[in-house]
């Protein structure tokens, strides 16, 4: 058979809650309960308020740069909901605050790094989430390594790794997908296709018809979903997590959504983004859709909405208070975390706050430990 087909692959698209707020109840069965949706919708409201407030903080000079999640709430929270808290692990990049909040991250921890403060990244290990990642794509490898460690230890935990459409163009993404697939690592790559990477439209990021098909290159399970659909995001993620937990290996999810805001507060999307495109996207705002669903089902009233918004304001207000009220870091912090133990020369820099030799106390140069021979002999003797 001289010309034969040796491989066939395909990508399915999943939508459960459509643009009009109508639910496919077959697909929805066993996914989110009414109470779930009410709860998640409230979280979406809080996150939206958080984004708007962060924007104002930046505009009033109290924050450097901030990337809003605005418009991506259903994708992010839906995925997060599919994890087992404190068991599964989230590796996010920088736009998934709602997922982190959902898993218990104090909200100020997201603000602080953008206010120029590393302390926001000092996450308690039991939260099972990694610090924000600025270098696009690099986190996909860390996530794969974490999942690998789980597998090696036979620990039934799964990693949810977020990445953007832009990140799929990095070499690291490719290497991570390849490692994960070879290792059958328990990981889900959740690609937020929000149509833009700063000013670069996703059709300029790849010539592939879908981002989801990129997973075929690694023989990896893949799906494309409506990312503004809370149900689809939850279901696709949950299925992938379960598959991973059961030894079925990694999965890829392309979640189609839209970045309603600028890339960050340092960006002005009007320079490159057609107004009509934004208009259309606003119509598809996941908050509108989720609310409509709840209201149509009689699960949500205008009153509840007003209360939820008020509550969101108050929560976010408090968070901003904490974040802006925090004492400036000690400038010792500049030094103290470079290594577990500072080498003598750095200790001198810390003590003197100088790098020029004349500013330093030469006696301090003798902070060094005992001569080598001595130490070696000790080590051999006591080792």
């Amino acid at each position, binding site marked *: 058979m001289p010309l034969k087909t040796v491989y066939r692959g395909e990508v399915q698209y999943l939508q459960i809650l459509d643009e009009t707020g109508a639910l496919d109840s077959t697909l929805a069965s066993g996914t989110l309960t009414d109470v779930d949706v009410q709860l998640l919708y409230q979280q979406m409201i809080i996150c939206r308020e958080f984004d708007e407030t962060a924007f104002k903080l930046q505009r009033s000079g109290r924050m*450097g*740069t901030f990337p809003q999640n605005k418009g991506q709430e259903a994708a992010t929270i839906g995925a997060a909901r599919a994890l087992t808290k404190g068991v599964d692990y989230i590796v996010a990049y920088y736009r998934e605050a709602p997922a982190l909040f959902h898993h218990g991250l104090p909200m100020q921890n997201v603000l602080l*790094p*953008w*206010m*120029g*403060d*590393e302390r926001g990244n000092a996450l308690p290990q039991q939260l099972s989430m990694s610090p924000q990642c*600025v*270098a*696009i*794509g690099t986190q996909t490898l860390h996530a794969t390594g974490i999942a690998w460690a789980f597998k090696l230890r036979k620990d039934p935990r799964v990693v949810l790794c977020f990445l953007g459409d*832009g*990140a799929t*163009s*990095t*070499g*690291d993404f490719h290497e991570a997908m390849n490692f994960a697939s070879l290792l059958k690592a328990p990981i889900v790559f959740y690609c937020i296709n929000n149509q833009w*990477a*700063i*000013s*670069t439209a996703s059709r*300029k*990021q*790849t010539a592939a018809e879908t981002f989801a098909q990129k997973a075929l290159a690694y023989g990896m399970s893949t799906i494309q979903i409506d990312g503004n659909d809370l149900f689809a995001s939850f279901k696709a993620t949950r299925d992938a997590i379960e598959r991973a937990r059961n030894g079925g290996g990694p999965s890829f999810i392309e979640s189609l959504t839209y970045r309603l805001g600028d890339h960050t507060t*340092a*960006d002005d999307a009007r*320079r*490159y983004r057609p107004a009509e495109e934004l208009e259309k996207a606003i119509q598809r705002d996941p908050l509108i859709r989720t609310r409509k669903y709840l209201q149509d089902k009689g699960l949500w009233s205008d009153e509840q909405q007003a209360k939820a918004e008020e509550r969101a304001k108050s929560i976010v207000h408090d968070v901003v208070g904490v974040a802006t009220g925090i004492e*400036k*870091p000690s*400038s010792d*912090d*500049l*030094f103290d975390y*470079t290594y577990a133990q500072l080498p003598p*020369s*750095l200790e001198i*820099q*810390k003590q003197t*706050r*100088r*790098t*020029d*030799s*004349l*500013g330093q106390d030469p006696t301090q140069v003798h902070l060094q430990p005992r001569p080598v021979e001595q130490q070696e002999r000790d080590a051999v003797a006591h080792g």
Partner: protein
Amino acid sequence: MPKLDLVGAINMTLAQEMARDERVMLLGEDIGLNGGVFRVTDGLQKRFGPERVFDTPLSESGIIGTSIGLAMAGMRPVPEIQFEGFMGPAYDQLVNQAARCRTRTRGAFTCPLTVRVPVGGGIHAPELHSDSPEAIYAHTPGLKVVMPSRPRIAKGMLLSAIRDPDPVIYFEPKRVYRSFREEVPEEDYTVPIGQAEVINEGTDVTVITWGAMLFDCLQAIDHMPDNVSVELIDLRTISPIDVTTIADSVRKTGRAVVVHEAPLTAGLGAEVSSLIQEHCFLYLEAPVQRVTGFDTVMPFYKLEKQYLPDPERISRSIEACLAY
């Protein structure tokens, strides 16, 4: 003559060179309609079209690697890396490929490309947007590295870089991008790579610096007592270093202070200090001082002022050097 800031000067220069030489093309992330995150390429895609001002995918190794191919095939690519912190993924293509193209082929293939990169701290940017990796590339034979700090010089050095037959990294100190304007000639002129500039003449001590630190040094000197005469040198080219200008000065002053943003250890200050010592040993009246970033990771911005050398640290060091 138009008065331009650093952004304006580079923008004008790119436009002029693209008009003059059709082999010149730009590529990078968000450089097209958006004009680059610092607007350095503003309007150029509109003027020269999306083929010559190409928005790449998010792919730094891709940007430099394809630029190498373009250059080998006779184009004059001017890729942009959005921030110095994202040169990392392109390090291999720069250091092991671009820099070695000529020598590996005994000149049969060359790699004339100019990599534009905003560099340095002080603008309250996020992590990886404030580093100073110039020493890394100075330790890479086959590359040239420049860092002009003023609009007029920037134009001349950019033209030298683009016309250079070898790969050049053109660092743009981002803290200076909008900090001041000066007259920039519209004519075509080049400023040679490999020459430092004496900014202030002086007799007591030589201060050598580059990039945005130039302005902190100027401030430091302004606040020195009147009877202290400081010679200030803007290195301008990181590699190859203009040791003549430096050594001539230090032979005169007998004292030297090197100032840079990057960490101390194995930074370019070490090279400058060693060269001074080698060339001016018998003239030196005090050890060469290095006023630099600390041997720590560049901190997030709440502490960046504590990290970067400031006029006070610089002048204290000059004083100590003079008092030695």
